[in-house]
């Protein structure tokens, strides 16, 4: 690990209000104020220097993506990395674990969140996260359909619920609380689903509304760094934007001055108006307005036209998808906790619905306040994460959007995207990929280049205010960073991965009293295939614990 000076680069660091030519100094993997004799000097004249990117939502590890790999051997025909100095990596959209780490590093991303870890499968998930090189990782356990949660919520036992959350985070080395289609996945086990926030789960009789507010209360009580991370009910169904609005409104009774109280993820899939696929149109405008009014953040869930594999814990929705596409389908029941489904899709530019999904994602990216939205594709549901530079360029250039819209089905009557002339600046994109995710996750050691921040640093060969009409060079520069540092080490040069390193797994520890929930644990573990003492993850490769 050398000490290093990045000289004369144009630093864009919105969190610290820096937008000027400045030298950046790196020592022992951290940013420092100054250095007397740097061992190495990188000349960044004429280039921009930003922090490493952070992905708040990408299914990069765990039972689902692995099942997807098993289901889709045809995805593995595409070689990406040869084994000289690196691990070999293959994949079209579903990549192997080493390829995931390298591809993230190659586009200047250094942190990623695996947002749906069934707690029962946390051993597998962490094993896979441990095989992803370079980037730092986090995993969010799934809570929304867990029998424990239903029971505590039904009896209004928020203290027990927060104890339980803390117990789960410690056992599974989890980072926060993820909810997928609350009550709907449980109802699916009884051949049903929930269709509004007041429908109830057939076993416990609790509603999504109670589960969401109960979990938010517990999270705020525990002061977790990340808020509730929610995949709303009725995802992917025309007309679902109303449920999304109702869900967002639930946050009004909570206050938090430091961060959002709810992160609505891949909101594109939850912003559909209309009554059926035939008359589906965009509800992004309404959702964006509601997000801007409330203490809520979102990530885009942009669709990239082409191949993708949908995999969510939302089993009923996956069955609907299977009925549409009639390709392959797998469905999984995770004991008392959750379920999941996997269906391969091809987002075709000729299909109006798919083109509209593409447009709705961009509407979200343009209409939501710039400090509330994060770029994501809900990898691999909406498409590959390595398309983030493409999404950023679309947001930055109206001309590029016009060019791309010529290639797809006409969406003019159903989406306002063709009339939007907003263009995000490079600084906005830095916010949407660095600053916002760090704030949303409650991580203050990254997403900026202030003193003592992690030396995750990216140099792009771009002017600080690139000309949006020259979108080709923007896309090229964003896709091929000149240099990427991870913890002060050079891992990527001119778009090529040059070094294999291991990142950290970050998890959150809160004090809990196991006695308090002892009876419930005892009771439920009678129905698990795993003994209570064997539940959870004993160790991971490199861990950082936030206390």
């Amino acid at each position, binding site marked *: 690990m050398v000490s290093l000076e990045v000289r004369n680069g144009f630093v864009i660091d919105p969190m610290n209000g820096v937008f000027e030519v400045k030298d950046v100094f790196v020592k022992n993997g951290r940013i420092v104020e100054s250095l007397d004799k740097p061992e190495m000097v990188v000349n960044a004249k004429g280039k921009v220097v930003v922090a490493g990117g952070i992905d708040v939502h990408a299914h990069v590890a765990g039972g689902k993506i692995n099942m997807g790999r098993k289901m*889709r*051997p*045809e*995805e593995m025909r595409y070689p990406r990395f040869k084994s000289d100095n690196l691990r070999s990596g293959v994949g079209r959209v579903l990549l192997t674990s080493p390829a995931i780490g390298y591809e993230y590093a190659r586009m200047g991303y250094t942190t990623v969140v695996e947002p749906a870890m069934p707690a029962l499968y946390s051993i597998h998930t962490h094993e896979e996260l441990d095989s992803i090189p370079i980037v730092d990782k986090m995993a969010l356990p799934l809570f929304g359909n867990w029998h424990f949660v239903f029971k505590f919520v039904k009896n209004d036992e928020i203290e027990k619920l927060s104890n339980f959350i803390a117990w789960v985070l410690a056992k599974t080395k989890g980072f926060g609380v993820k909810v997928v289609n609350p009550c709907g996945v449980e109802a699916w086990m009884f051949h049903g689903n929930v269709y509004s926030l007041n429908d109830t789960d057939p076993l416990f009789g609790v509603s999504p509304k109670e589960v969401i507010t109960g979990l938010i209360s517990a999270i705020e009580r525990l002061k977790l760094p990340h808020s509730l991370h929610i995949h709303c009910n009725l995802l992917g169904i025309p007309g679902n934007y109303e449920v999304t609005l109702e869900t967002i409104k639930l946050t009004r009774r909570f206050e938090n001055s430091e961060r959002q109280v709810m992160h609505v993820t891949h909101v594109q899939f939850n912003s559909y108006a209309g009554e059926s696929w035939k008359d589906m149109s965009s509800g992004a405008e309404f959702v964006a307005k509601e997000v801007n009014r409330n203490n809520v953040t979102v990530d885009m869930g942009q669709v990239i036209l082409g191949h993708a594999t949908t995999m969510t814990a939302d089993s009923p929705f996956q069955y609907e998808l299977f009925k549409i596409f009639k390709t392959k389908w797998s469905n999984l029941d995770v004991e008392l906790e959750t379920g999941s489904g996997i269906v*391969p899709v091809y987002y075709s530019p000729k299909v109006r619905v798919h083109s509209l999904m593409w447009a709705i994602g961009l509407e979200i990216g343009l209409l939501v306040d710039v400090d509330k939205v994060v770029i994501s594709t809900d990898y691999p549901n909406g498409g590959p994460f390595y398309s983030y530079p493409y999404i950023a360029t679309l947001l930055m250039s109206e001309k590029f959007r016009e060019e791309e819209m010529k290639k797809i089905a006409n969406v003019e009557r159903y989406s306002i995207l063709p009339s939007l002339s907003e263009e995000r600046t490079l600084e906005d994109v830095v916010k949407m990929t660095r600053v916002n995710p760090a704030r949303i996750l409650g991580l203050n050691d990254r997403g900026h280049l202030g003193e003592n921040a992690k030396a995750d640093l990216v140099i792009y060969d771009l002017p600080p205010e690139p000309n949006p009409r020259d979108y080709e060079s923007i896309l090229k520069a964003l896709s091929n960073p000149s240099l990427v540092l991870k913890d002060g080490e050079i891992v990527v040069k001119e778009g090529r991965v040059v070094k294999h390193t291991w990142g950290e797994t970050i998890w959150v520890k809160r004090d809990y009293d196991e006695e308090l929930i002892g009876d419930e644990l005892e009771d439920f573990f009678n129905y698990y295939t795993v003994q209570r003492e064997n539940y959870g993850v004993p160790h991971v490769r490199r861990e950082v614990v936030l206390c």
Partner: protein
Amino acid sequence: MLILRPKLSFEVHVEAEITPDLAEMDLKDVLNFEVYYGKLVKRLGDLFDVETVGEGKRLILEGDFSRVKWIGKGMKDGEIVVRGDVGQHCGAYMEGGKIIVEGNADDWLGTEMRGGEIVVKGNAGNRIGCNFWGEMEGVKGGKIIVEGDVGSYVGEKMVDGYIEVGNAGDFIGTEMKGGVIVVRGNCGYVGWDMKGGEIRVGGRFDLPPSFVEENGVWRGDVNVGGKGVIRKL
């Protein structure tokens, strides 16, 4: 026109994605064409003698090519003549032109081909004219004719095109969606989960119970609401 002869008897498989395009390249480039010998990267000239004979977009392969894979992969036009046996994946992803194998062919002949023609004078292995693992659509066009017998799995998930074989093993036209498969001799089960297309059999064959007889032909597979046809030659 080029004639290729192996320089040695191969101990491991050679992966040589050679197409008739080679006949239009400079001899120097042909000799430098990258091939794999097991895990080693080699030049075509290291493993084969190359001789230029006259004009024309043709390759003549003389000698034992039974351990050489991927011959004619994705070829678009021209002709390849194999004077002997040929290895796996011959004519995979082929889009046009013609491959004539005078000996036997191995497994995965003409996998996922889009057009063109493959003629095998001897026998062929398993998975003739199928898809690679996982792909939802197999052969989409072209013609495969095997004069001898073949193994199991013929034309799985076939969408369009024509396959003709002598005797065959089990599972002919599984999940087929279109096109025609002709089995001149006997074979095992035909047409499981067939959605469309036609299978014609000359000899004995096993019929899945999910087919309905109608005017001397069988239609199905009713399990998947298919409209495939199985008939006697």
